[in-house]
């Protein structure tokens, strides 16, 4: 089993373990399907991505295409695009450096922003991912390795989740609630943070 495949399946396990949690968060401000859809997507990822594929770029691209065709909703195109864009950065590589991870996360975020026409502060996954990227970048520029950088990224992402509780949603279905969306954490920011935490644990293990 390749490292990248193992990491993807770990992300899938985390999502599956948190299926009900994510769905419950989505019930509060959305349509109660985020955990269900993401779990279905990652089950397909485990099946469709060849388990011995060493090319990280190819594996991420395949994972993205699989998410795109199995998740549905808004999460499918957004997560699908994120993995495919990260895959482009990693094309042909069989190992990932701290710098590579920064470039991949940057590309993933840029893809999400372009497809979702969203910016930070709209109560979306970007509110976890953008602070995570900033914290990660600062950490590795200060000499931290990938694991330590991810530690900082996860802290920032969790702060991002807390931040989403304080703001009004202006994108996606939650936006229809207006001020009633305040007090609830964003399911997308939560699944994005769970993803980063899984990668952190995988890298540090």
């Amino acid at each position: 089993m390749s490292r990248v495949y193992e990491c993807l399946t770990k992300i899938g396990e985390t999502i599956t373990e948190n299926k009900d949690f994510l769905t419950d968060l989505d019930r509060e401000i959305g349509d109660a399907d985020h955990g269900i859809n993401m779990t279905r997507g990652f089950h397909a990822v485990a099946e469709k991505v060849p388990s011995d594929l060493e090319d990280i770029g190819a594996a991420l691209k395949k994972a993205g295409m699989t998410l795109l065709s199995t998740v549905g909703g808004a999460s499918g195109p957004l997560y699908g695009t994120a993995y495919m864009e990260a895959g482009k950065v990693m094309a042909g590589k069989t190992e990932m450096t701290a710098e590579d991870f920064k470039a991949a996360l940057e590309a993933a975020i840029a893809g999400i922003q372009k497809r979702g026409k969203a910016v930070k502060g709209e109560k979306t996954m970007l509110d976890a991912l953008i602070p995570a990227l900033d914290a990660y970048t600062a950490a590795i520029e200060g000499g931290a390795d990938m694991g330590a950088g991810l530690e900082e990224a996860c802290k920032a992402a969790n702060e991002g989740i807390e931040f989403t509780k304080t703001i009004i949603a202006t994108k996606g279905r939650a936006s229809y609630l207006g001020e009633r969306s305040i007090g609830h954490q964003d399911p997308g920011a939560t699944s994005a943070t769970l993803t980063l935490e899984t990668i952190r644990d995988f890298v540090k293990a």
Partner: protein
Amino acid sequence: MKKLINEIDNIVDEMLDGMVAAYPKYVRRLEGLEVLVRAGGSEGKVALISGGGSGHEPAHGGFVGKGMLDGAVAGAVFTSPTPDQVYEAIMAANGGKGVLLVIKNYTGDVLNFEMAADMAADEGVEVEKVVVADDVAVENSTWTAGRRGIAGTIFVHKLAGACAEAGGSLAEVKAVAEKVIANVRSMGMAVDACTVPAAGKPSFDLAEDEIEIGIGIHGEPGTHREKIGPVNDIADKLLEKILAEGIYNAGDDVAVMVNGMGGTPLMELFVANKHVKEVLDGKGINVYKTIVGNYMTSLDMEGFSITLLKLDDQMKGLLDAPADTPAFVQM
């Protein structure tokens, strides 16, 4: 949760096969896909394709047939279909005169249908799209994803479908769809929530004597909750918000749809419609045609929506044109 199902994961698949088994004259299923197209194909006409999450039956597969849709794409329950499915629908339904995608305004639907349109355009297919956003419960501002698309979508299928059936060009069919979208407004309410099978519990909780005004067709919370009163009072509230749009005025001709959310008896829908007609009559708004029934449902949700469409002569002709589909037949 009590549901008449086998495996939760097979609901959409089994439903589509069941529709084909019931209506082989109208629809066939693309092999291995969650797509229904016309059994007889769509050669030589502009093709209309709609779709969205499942759970809104008969929308949209029930409207595939002469005078309405050429293809319908079914996602998982309340979840937009994926771009690959929509793409295959476009390629299969394309009769050589182009394809119009009728999209309900939800972030997921718009994202997935747009990606599919891009993919089909890369293959040289002429694809246009319209986005239906008729739900007045949602304020249309830069602070939201825009108004939701709900039951008014059926009028887009009917009128644009009639235009396509009559040989209209892609531009003409799209223009009709846009005219309908500009003149159609809806608002719904729920007496009780729906239960998404995979979630296993109601999508929201209402007290015994409480209703939700402005509900979305996926059980999204509405504008507010209040104590239940007579249906006349509830209909008044929905109508008031629709009429406040300023589109429907004395002397205008309108089509009315009183649409059930899936769990409300027709008896109650007709009671509601009686009052809707009286209110519109009282305002001098002429009810040209009325449709009452379950057209854009929300699983087992109890509740209804009211839709008004302002009509001009061209639109009356398209509304009156024949249609022959599983869920809507008009001679």
